[in-house]
């Protein structure tokens, strides 16, 4: 196979991985935020984000036949999902985690798993009432088309992409933009604002934060609100990107996203993004290893195909953590002796 075919192939694989990675990244941030303040792996986050996806589905479904501008629909879907997922997350914290503040860390972890199971069946039930199980997104027209296929103003770019054989759909571009905006906002809030500093203080020592005049419960709620809202965004993007979701489809990406958060260094926002992107790309590259294996005549590589792509992230994680035990961008865990 010549380079002219292989190059666009590999570029497509990488681009696919990056887009996937952005989805992971935002999901990962939901985990990271909560992990930051409570040192809790919030297993329920996968359902919080799928709830966002369900809300997005409903918005698109209801607005299906309206003549409304597609971007406006998306905006409504995003906002609605942010609100619902955010509030849901706050509610979960209030009811299921807050009473366990003093307990050993594994106790809220098990509670989180319980909440996750509850939400799965509840979501399935609610959609099941209307005879639905797999929810298929009806995207506004144009979203699923090739990027810059029609608009004359960007036709040159579209043409260029086509000539080099790169597939990008409009929804992918939208996804990346939404993701970048959310990331930027979050980064600003956490690192630049008073709220962010307070959240970080609470995440390290709730009692002392109280001595600084910070209401730690309020900050924890705020964190869950932000984390949930990010979950909502990621849910809509997830649904948009892959088309179909159901009440149970949050679990797998949830795990990978959390892996991404760990890979990047738990608690680090750029880390989560880097981790997400890396895992997205790696997952995709492992999926095509056999192509290269065959090309290079390496029979053993030829057997590494998509069936291994699920564990690719974990193997990378092991390798990286062995050399960098606190993740790629994780602050070294300072403990002075």
């Amino acid at each position: 196979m010549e380079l002219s075919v292989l190059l666009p192939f590999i570029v497509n694989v990488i681009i696919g991985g990056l887009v996937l990675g952005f989805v992971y990244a935002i999901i990962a941030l939901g985990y990271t935020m909560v992990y930051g303040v409570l040192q809790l792996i919030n297993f329920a986050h996968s359902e919080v984000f799928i709830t966002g996806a369900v809300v997005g589905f409903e918005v698109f479904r209801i607005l299906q036949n309206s003549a409304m501008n597609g971007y406006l629909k998306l905006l409504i879907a995003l906002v609605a999902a942010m609100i619902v997922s955010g509030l849901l997350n706050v509610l979960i914290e209030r009811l299921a985690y807050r009473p366990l503040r003093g307990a050993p860390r594994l106790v809220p972890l098990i509670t989180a798993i319980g909440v996750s199971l509850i939400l799965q069946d509840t979501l399935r039930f609610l959609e099941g009432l209307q005879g639905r199980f797999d929810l298929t997104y009806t995207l506004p027209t144009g979203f699923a088309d090739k990027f810059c296929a029609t608009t004359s103003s960007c036709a040159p770019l579209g043409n260029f992409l086509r000539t080099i054989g790169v597939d990008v759909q409009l929804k992918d571009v939208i996804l990346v933009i939404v993701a970048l905006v959310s990331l930027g906002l979050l980064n600003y809030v956490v690192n630049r604002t008073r709220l962010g500093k307070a959240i970080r203080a609470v995440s390290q020592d709730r009692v002392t934060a109280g001595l600084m005049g910070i209401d730690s419960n309020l900050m924890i709620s705020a964190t869950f609100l932000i984390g949930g809202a990010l979950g909502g965004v990621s849910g809509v993007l997830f649904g948009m990107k892959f088309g179909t979701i159901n009440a149970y489809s949050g679990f797998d990406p949830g795990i990978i996203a959390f892996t991404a958060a760990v890979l990047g260094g738990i608690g680090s926002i750029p880390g989560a993004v880097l981790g997400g992107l890396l895992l997205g790309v790696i997952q995709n590259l492992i999926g095509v290893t056999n192509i290269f294996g065959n090309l290079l005549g390496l029979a053993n590589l030829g057997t590494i195909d998509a069936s291994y792509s699920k564990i690719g992230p974990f193997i990378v994680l092991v390798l990286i953590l062995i050399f960098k035990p606190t993740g790629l961008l994780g602050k070294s865990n300072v403990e002075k002796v």
Partner: protein
Amino acid sequence: MTVANPAKPAVRRPLVKPDRTVWLVLFFVVTSILLLVSHETDVMKNLGALGDVLRNKVVEALVVSLFLANVLFAYLWKAANWAKLLVGIGSLLFVLPLAGQADTSLLDLSIQIMIFAALALGLNIVVGLAGLLDLGYVAFFAVGAYTWSIFGSPRFSEVLKYYGANAGSTGSGTLVIGLVLTAVAAGSMLYIRGMHGRVAPTTLSNLSFLLAGFGLLSGIILVGRSILVLASGSAEALANGINPGFFWLFLALSVMTAALVGVLIGLPVLKLKGDYLAIITLGLGEVIRVLANNLGLYTAGSQGITPIASASVPWFNSLAGALGFRPEQYYLLFLYVLVLIVIAVILLVNVRLDNSRIGRAWIAIRDDEIAAQAMGVPLMQTKLIAFATGASFAGVMGMIFAAKQTFISPESFNLLQSITVLSMVVLGGMGSFSGVILGAAVVTLLNLRILPGLGEASANVSWIPQEVNPANFNRFIFGSILVAMMLLRPEGLLPNARRTRELHHEDDQEDESADGNASGLKAGGDVYSAGLATTKEDDKTGGDR
């Protein structure tokens, strides 16, 4: 004047337990009768309304649970020793098998409970005692299961056939080379290790160790491969797997393999802290499952391995036959007895380790790694022992599980299983042996009896609409129970005394900062936040370089 006398031990009302011998025996008798009667169809027919009630699946599930509670009460209540013994032995060795004769599923259930109890005990060492969060524990279970299944099933002859057909240049020469390589590599590794005990390791010596490690690995692979090739002639003879008499050997082998895999997985990852470890073990658990799914030659991949043999013990079978068991129940009864013995051993090992130097080291590590190390506790070694011990319990139970199921496939070893075992540990009470066993019993009963019972009992109740039939809400109900139990008893059902002491500082005082209570305030000079903290990566401890 003296210094104030602080920290009087918490004044707890001393629990004067009333003697409950009579109650215990009474309870035992009543529940045994209920259990036996409710599984005796003929008797039930003549019981009329009572029979109908007993036949109700929820009631049935409750009867089973109550009966099993005997053992718990015999453990918990204050009663004469003879009564405790009577109830314990009577329930487990007499009544339960008897009921199992009428209802085989009771045997299945009991075995499953004990398998999970052993898993929970193993994970308890890792998580509860040593404080290492392992979310991929089921991997060791899988290793044990496959270790036996590959050999104790037609798979083995498939493997041999494959090697017979693909021998390549492998032959007895390879065997010799392999053996020599193995011996040399192992020898060098031991030598280098010995050296490291005396002088500080250098980069060169570390590299040589690594190299020798590779040598060892290749040696073992060569030896294994040539043995398989040489043995391929007997593929036909082994069409149904190796002689079931090897079951006993493999019982030991599964322990060792799982422990070995525990060490191999542990070596690279046990340096990691807290949740980094959690997620990486989760990942490695998945890796093992995916490997099982992909290494079709050995594991039959997604098709699963079947039938899997169990030990054949003729005298046991005739005994069971004489006791009125049906032939198809022999192997379950056998596994039931086996699993009882194994779990007794595991429990004994647990208790003994806990009250020993190694048990103290585990807890010390859990409490404070740095201080533990500074007190002379070798971190890696102690953690590895915890990992390997926990893994070995899972390994042996994996093998028994495979024999019980007669079929295994990678699906049975997914992440959810690891999480389930973890929930048993936490639900029962981390660090408490009786607690985690109870946790395993409760969760297994819920999943295999009570929830299905709910589904069955409500299936034909006309006023419950299909959409909300409990049979469709197993996860929901299970999740709700998990959450409720955690909120009501965060320290677990039968908490470990040590844990209770800890938790009660905090537990009684709700939340700290907001309500103005003291839970976050540790006594002593703990300056740093309670985060995940420990050593700095750029300042590895001396020996790690």
